[in-house]
């Protein structure tokens, strides 16, 4: 089922230490494809046809200044292992950081790079030219080396994109490009909307690049239906594309233009002169030949900056006892929506929440929470639709 080879036209994530980037391989075979990894040029096409995994940046022997090739390799040697025989100090008492301890200048380092030195060769140079490295404590040395490794490591991971990676990647790049929907908040949305195979779900994505839709498609693996509810313009799909979904995995995805849904509704209404019934069947446009009914969805996810008006309408698509989740990067619009839903008795178990998330460094004698954390991952209003 899973495609585990790096193939043309597919997306891959390239990771060096904590740095990640997303790339699409060229559509045509045989084309060279050079990307930047940090400050290094890497020929990504050299990994084509190989399984995803760890690769070593390797120099083309003939021309050292050209881009690195990728060679599969599991023998990752961390710099701290390479340099572990060096002396270290007992404490940092003698160290006075006057900014002059490193004798190599920026230009020197650039020149070493130009000469085609590998990352670990450059770091070795940096260590040898540091006046204070050998009197630093072992922990300080390790910290220094792992900082340098971020820039110079010779190993990269070529990852097959999955939701976990993509959610983290898009949030770390520019949170607002996905409305600041943080991975842990995405996880909550999947639970609170009761996403499961063989269900019918609706997603109104007002700016999350298809992240939630992709997460649902991945979760249900072809079983069920996901309606992409939209009003106008191009639908959000960048994350869906990056998932390299097979046609079977994409099968559940249907587009529903809400204006067209409404038009069909009106025609039906005019036809029999009645009020819109709660579970009327509506025919849709070519994109979505299957019918989308009011009161038919098992779960609904609304993601946008100002859900107030639209969320209340979309809940009409939900079956009684169906679960909805409304996500917003701001609390104020959800506050209004909360009051509105409560006054209209639209739902029970209404909850307005915010998640708090923090990573920890767990290392012998150096365990502590990460010093950088996200201050906000968006707000969620969730509930269960009822008929009063």
């Amino acid at each position, binding site marked *: 089922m899973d495609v585990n080879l790096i193939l043309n036209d597919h997306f891959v994530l390239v990771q060096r230490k904590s740095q990640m980037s997303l790339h699409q391989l060229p559509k045509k075979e045989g084309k060279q494809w050079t990307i930047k990894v940090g400050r290094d040029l890497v020929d990504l096409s050299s990994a084509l046809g190989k399984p995803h995994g760890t690769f070593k940046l390797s120099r083309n022997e003939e021309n050292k200044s050209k881009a690195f090739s990728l060679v599969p390799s599991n023998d990752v040697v961390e710099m701290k292992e390479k340099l572990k025989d060096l002396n270290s100090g007992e404490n940092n008492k003698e160290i006075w950081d006057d900014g002059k301890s490193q004798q190599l200048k920026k230009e020197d380092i650039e020149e070493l790079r130009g000469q085609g030195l590998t990352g670990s060769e450059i770091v070795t140079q940096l260590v040898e030219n540091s006046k204070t490295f050998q009197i630093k404590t072992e922990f300080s040395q390790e910290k220094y080396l792992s900082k340098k490794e971020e820039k110079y490591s010779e190993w990269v991971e070529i990852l097959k994109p999955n939701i976990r990676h993509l959610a983290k990647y898009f949030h770390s790049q520019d949170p607002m490009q996905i409305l600041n929907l943080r991975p842990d908040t995405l996880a909550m949305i999947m639970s609170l909307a*009761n996403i499961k195979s*063989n269900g019918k779900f609706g997603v109104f994505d007002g700016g999350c690049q298809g992240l939630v839709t992709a997460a649902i498609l991945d*979760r249900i693996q072809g079983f069920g239906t996901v309606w992409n509810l939209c009003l106008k313009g191009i639908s959000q799909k960048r994350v869906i594309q990056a998932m390299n979904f097979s046609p079977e995995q994409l099968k559940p995805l249907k587009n529903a233009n809400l204006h067209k849904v409404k038009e069909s509704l009106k025609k039906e209404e005019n036809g029999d002169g009645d009020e819109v019934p709660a579970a009327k069947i509506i025919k849709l446009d070519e994109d979505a030949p299957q019918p989308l009914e009011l009161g038919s969805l098992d779960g609904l996810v609304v993601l946008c900056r100002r859900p107030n008006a639209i969320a209340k309408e979309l809940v009409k698509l939900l*079956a009684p006892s169906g679960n909805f989740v409304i996500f917003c990067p701001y609390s104020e619009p959800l506050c209004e929506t909360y009051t509105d839903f409560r006054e209209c008795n639209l739902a029970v178990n209404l909850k307005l*929440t915010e*998640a*708090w998330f923090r990573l920890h460094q*767990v290392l012998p004698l150096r365990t502590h929470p990460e010093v950088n954390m996200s201050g906000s991952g968006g707000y969620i209003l969730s509930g*269960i639709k009822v*008929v009063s």
Partner: protein
Amino acid sequence: MSFAKTKHAVEEGDTVIIYVNPQAMYAIQVKPLIATKKGDMVENIFQTAYGALKVQELVGKKFGHKVQFSRGWGYLLHPTPELWTLNLLHRTQILYTPDISLIVMQLDLKAGSIVVESGTGSGSLSHAIIRAIAPTGHLHTFDFHQQRVEIVTKEFIDHGLETFVTAKQRDACKDGFDLEDTADAVFLDLPNPWLAISHAVKALKNSGGRICTFSPCIEQTQKTCEALVAKGFKCIETMECLQREFQVKNITLPDVDDYNFSFSQTTDKDSEGNGKKEGRKFRALLPALQMAGHTGYLTFATWPRQSSVQI
């Protein structure tokens, strides 16, 4: 039969949720008769805060609609793992939705995943795992406590989930899981998770997978991380997730909180008359004064594809 597939009306045997208010919800199984303490079978009448409910009368009722009690009413809700988590009978400390959600997503669970869970506890996480991996996946769940296994097995059957799960009594640390090259993901909630890591490795697919351990104390997490490094796990990450709930309140401050004072205005009597009450009204988002400050540390790691595996 009610967890596995969404239905619109209640059938006999279903477990349903009766929702009265956020503090009063009940999970009940729709059966005409119930055993008394003495073992006699009598009519199944459930007592809510607002009076009695004849359970058998729920058959045919539509989910999401009102149900009548003798002195009030509530809503009849379709069960979900989240509602089950809130209403199950605690046999142990349980995992709650924020941690459960992270576990399911960070373990890359999806329809078709094969998962190992130890211990089962009260089955709170198990229900969410089964939802994520059905209809083609399978959960192997283990607990060293025989009674817990018996109860949860009955619940899985009552909930129509028995085809997606196998529950067994087993001391995972001592005896492992009796599974080899099988699991896409392993979840450990044990006092000494590091003792089960080598068993987890055996159970995980040679083509790779994910592991998660949950521990309340940092010392357990430290030992686990060391064991994961030693065994060759990659991408080891430890995280904490807390949830903050807000109340939305329309606040109208009492007169005494209205400080309509100005040094420069010549008469503040006048200004006090003007739209005074409006100035004391606003809508506020109030964080809960008390919240859960800790559940446990979640550690995730990747079991890499073994070199023996051919693509």
